[in-house]
């Protein structure tokens, strides 16, 4: 028995990564290490340079900032709405507001100084550069959204960001790049912003039915328009403000139609679905305007 077991472990030890990947990572690593250095060196130079230049710079910057602040006091902090030489746009998510920057807009959540996203006008060249960055993984065309919209999900390994949702939106001749950080904003909130964008010119397309999206890499469709109430462990609760009984029925049919889930039980209010490979079970319940998802994973020990 032990011999057999040892053979298994010996087999697993023989798994080794390919050489070409080693070379690729080596080149990337050398490049990353070397880009770390100039930053340090510049910092030292900056430290050693005479302080008069620094003071002068700060003085000029302060003056400019003061002037800018006076100029922008009226228009630049309106939640859900932005105007100016930039394409004028609004969205429907009241807890998110934006501030104008030299490149576009930065988004914040009420009560938090932390940046949660950006919007900027991009050229085709810039768009392609962003798309080609190494962390970009998933490309998806958003069906029936107000403007032609393509989503790219980017892996970000930061303490407080794991995924960055990059949307490229065609508003007339302009391409606007929006990016939002998950989990600073929940998936439902990110999609709510993009699905409610209105640039005025051109007018947004208004889809008759519900819009559906996937959260993260899951395949379960979620309707757009959910407001997160509590997302904790394997249970997620949202308020579906505009979800009627008909919408709920439509939603349940949508889940079934994906082919990724089969219904195993229901009582009219709650529906239990099992994923096609049996790895996930989800109970969806609608009580009043509150929609709850309870996930369980029968094949997972954790």
């Amino acid at each position: 028995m032990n011999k057999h077991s040892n053979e298994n472990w010996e087999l697993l030890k023989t798994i080794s990564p390919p050489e070409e990947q080693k070379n690729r990572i080596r080149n990337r690593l050398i490049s990353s290490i070397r880009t770390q250095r100039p930053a340090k060196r510049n910092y030292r130079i900056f430290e050693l340079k005479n302080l008069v230049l620094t003071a002068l710079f700060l003085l000029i910057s302060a003056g400019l900032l003061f002037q800018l602040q006076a100029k922008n006091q009226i228009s630049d902090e309106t939640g859900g709405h932005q105007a100016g030489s930039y394409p004028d746009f609004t969205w429907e998510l009241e807890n998110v507001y934006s501030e104008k920057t030299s490149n576009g807009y930065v988004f914040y959540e009420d009560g938090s100084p932390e940046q949660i996203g950006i919007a900027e006008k991009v050229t085709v060249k810039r768009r392609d550069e962003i798309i080609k960055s190494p962390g970009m993984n998933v490309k998806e065309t958003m069906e029936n959204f107000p403007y032609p919209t393509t989503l790219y999900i980017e892996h970000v390994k930061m303490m407080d960001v794991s995924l960055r949702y990059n949307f490229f939106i065609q508003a007339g001749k302009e391409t606007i790049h929006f990016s939002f950080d998950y989990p600073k904003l929940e998936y439902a909130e990110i999609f709510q912003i993009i699905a409610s964008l209105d640039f005025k010119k051109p007018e947004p397309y208004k889809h008759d039915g519900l819009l559906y999206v996937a959260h993260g890499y899951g395949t379960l469709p979620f309707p757009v328009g959910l407001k997160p109430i509590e997302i904790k462990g394997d249970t997620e609760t949202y308020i579906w403000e505009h979800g009627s009984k008909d919408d709920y029925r439509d939603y349940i049919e949508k889940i079934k139609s994906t082919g990724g889930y089969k219904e195993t039980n229901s009582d009219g209010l709650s529906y239990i679905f099992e994923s096609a490979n049996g790895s996930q079970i989800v109970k969806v319940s609608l009580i009043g305007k509150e929609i709850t998802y309870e996930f369980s994973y029968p094949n997972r020990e954790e």
Partner: protein
Amino acid sequence: MGEITDHKKEQLVMEWYEAYYKDIYRFIFFMMGDQQYCEDFVHDTFLRAYTSFERFENRGNVKTWLFSIAKHLVMDEIRKRKRRRIFPIFSSEQDIPSSFNVEQYIENRDTVERTLKAIQKLKPEYRLVITLKKIEECSTKEIAEILGWSEAKIRKTLSRGLNAVRKKEVAEGGGHYEQTF
């Protein structure tokens, strides 16, 4: 000891890369269950070794230090995945990634895949200890250093982890595993 130059630091880290690339890559692969993150995390492990070089005490063991950096990266990602409901590929119906050198044990492919799947279904703590002990052949003392646990805790976790692998293997009609070491 005088301040080490950037050039010397780079040289050392690249030497470590040549020496431990395979170990770190395999450790990350067994922990995450897919190759998607391997390249990024191997890169990040060695880059972090470079940027926090000063924190590395020369009397320490380079191998355990690198494993502890990699362990922090993968455990962070596993916590994030849990929240995002992303699971390793081996919990689904997929094969060993094609770029791995599987030819040499193609006859045993089923066994390897089954065992990988079984390992992927374990708690991350079990996966950590089993990978370090059975695949990377670290000593209990080295694992204690990497994880910051007591040696007794490692023995207990390993025993329970192997037991869990064995149960999963038996449930799927697979092979046998020793329960202790």
